[in-house]
């Protein structure tokens, strides 16, 4: 039996006086790869930030439950220790923080071999990168891959990846897809946030997010068809009325 790892019910969140998530409900099955697609500004990153409990995203109505635990009021690290992990759309830069320390920050195994192994899984040469800093001297794509390496080392039960393909070249994207397979193999549940069809194809199930709520869900083919054919040209005309 598939069991739910993340259950979201009627999630509503306002930012700057605007309703960004609007009675959003979704359910993720454990061990599967899910995708949330939707146009720019639909609320995809907001959804991930809210599940992770980032500052500014903690006040909402509705419920968010992870493995049955209500997440409301929990800090980011408490959520991480429950098993939630996240890769940012635009990863942070850290002055002077070494790549190795960063990769191992959430790992139980603190060995250099572990860091090297995770770097190789995202196709970066440990010899070239382990001693560098996770700062602005890395390209955007390198930082994203290093962040993914840190996620592999952390091995969370749920990984939210916000636009894993942004700033990534075609070859590197294949390695990122390999890493997603590795996560799947470890039993992690993956939530891919994207507006790319190529990324969407990696998923088992997809949700279409528009104007802060889920407009449709189902198999990847169905959502792809709807997203490309009707959603993108729709110009948000299907915005729901206020109230759940």
């Amino acid at each position, binding site marked *: 039996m598939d069991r739910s790892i993340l259950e979201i019910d009627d999630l509503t969140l306002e930012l700057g006086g605007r309703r960004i998530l609007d009675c959003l409900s979704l359910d993720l099955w454990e061990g599967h790869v899910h995708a949330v697609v939707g146009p720019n500004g639909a609320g995809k990153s907001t959804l991930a930030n809210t599940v992770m409990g980032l500052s500014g995203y903690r006040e909402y109505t509705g419920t968010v439950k992870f493995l049955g635990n209500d997440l409301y009021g929990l800090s980011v690290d408490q*959520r991480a220790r429950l098993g939630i992990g*996240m890769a*940012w759309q635009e990863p*942070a*830069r*850290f*002055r002077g*923080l070494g790549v190795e320390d960063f990769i191992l920050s959430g790992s139980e195994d603190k060995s250099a071999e572990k860091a090297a192994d995770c770097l190789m899984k995202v196709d970066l040469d440990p010899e070239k990168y382990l001693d*560098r800093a996770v700062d602005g001297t890395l390209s955007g794509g390198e930082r994203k891959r290093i962040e993914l390496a*840190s996620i592999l080392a952390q091995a969370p039960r749920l990984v939210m990846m916000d636009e894993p393909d942004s700033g990534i070249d075609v070859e590197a994207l294949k390695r990122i897809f390999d890493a997603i397979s590795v996560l799947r193999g470890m039993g992690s549940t993956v939530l891919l946030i994207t507006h790319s069809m190529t990324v969407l194809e990696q998923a088992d199930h997809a949700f279409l997010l528009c104007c802060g709520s889920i407009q449709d869900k189902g198999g990847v083919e169905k959502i792809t068809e709807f997203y490309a054919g009707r959603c993108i040209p729709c110009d948000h005309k299907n915005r729901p009325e206020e109230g759940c």
Partner: protein
Amino acid sequence: MGDSELVRKMYESLGEGCITSPGVAHIEIHGNTVLGLHLVPGLVVEAEEREDGVRAMVRIEHGARIEKPVNMCFGLIPEKGVQRIEMDVEVGEDAAAAVVSSCTFPNAVDVLHEMQAVVRLGPGSEYSYLERHVHSPGGGVKVVPRSFVDLGEGASFMADFEMLRGRAGELDIVYEAVCAASSVLEMNARISGSGDDRIRIHEKATLSGEHSRGVLTTNIAVRDSAWADIRNTIRAEAAYARGHVDCREIVRDGATARAVPVIEVTHPLAHVTHEAALGSVDSKQLETLMARGLTEDEATDMIIAGLLSPRYKAEVTR
């Protein structure tokens, strides 16, 4: 205590053993006594003991390239005392050397350490100078380094000041540099302050030659009731001179940080920038690490450790 015992104690406080390799030049000065001096070809040192310190002339001969870093070790093992060092450094044309200077006052209760250095870099020479301090946990030390650096045409000078072990105590740094055409200057300070430490850094670089470049970087973390005041100045006077002043200070508890970057340009083809950020750690950095399961305190410590590591170097904008 015998000389060799003092030398051993100085290196021990740095977490190191005595230097034994014949290829590595070193000099050890405890208080006003030169305890050890070992030279390599191309390096000339003349040291004169004075009442409360040592005056040293250091010369890297023209064209000499000293392969391994020269180790200088200054310090006082007792709880009280004064050490005044006067140093004249001359780096000959096209010469190259790196110096690691360790200043250790591991038991200081009431210690004064003064350093007056004049460094002259000949054309095309390269000199890098790392000064790292180990102080007592009680912070009973006042450190007053004064340096004047004169960079010849095409010379390069990299200085890195590190105060991370023990308490800074009272630290009052004044560095000044003048850069001739096509020379490159980098001065970097990494300091952690706690208790009632007082940290003052005044650095000034004058980019007087065309195509000269200068970067002054300060990374500081203060906590408890420590206090840091950074005034770094770059003045660019020539075409294509490029400068950048960069200051990052993380403040915790009841500490205070102040930064006053001064940038001054007197030539229309020169360009100088500055960047300063003071206060809490960046929330995105913090939350990224907390999303790996680190507590807020653990994440903050890790961010500060990165900031204070020698890995970070600011760069001039082109």
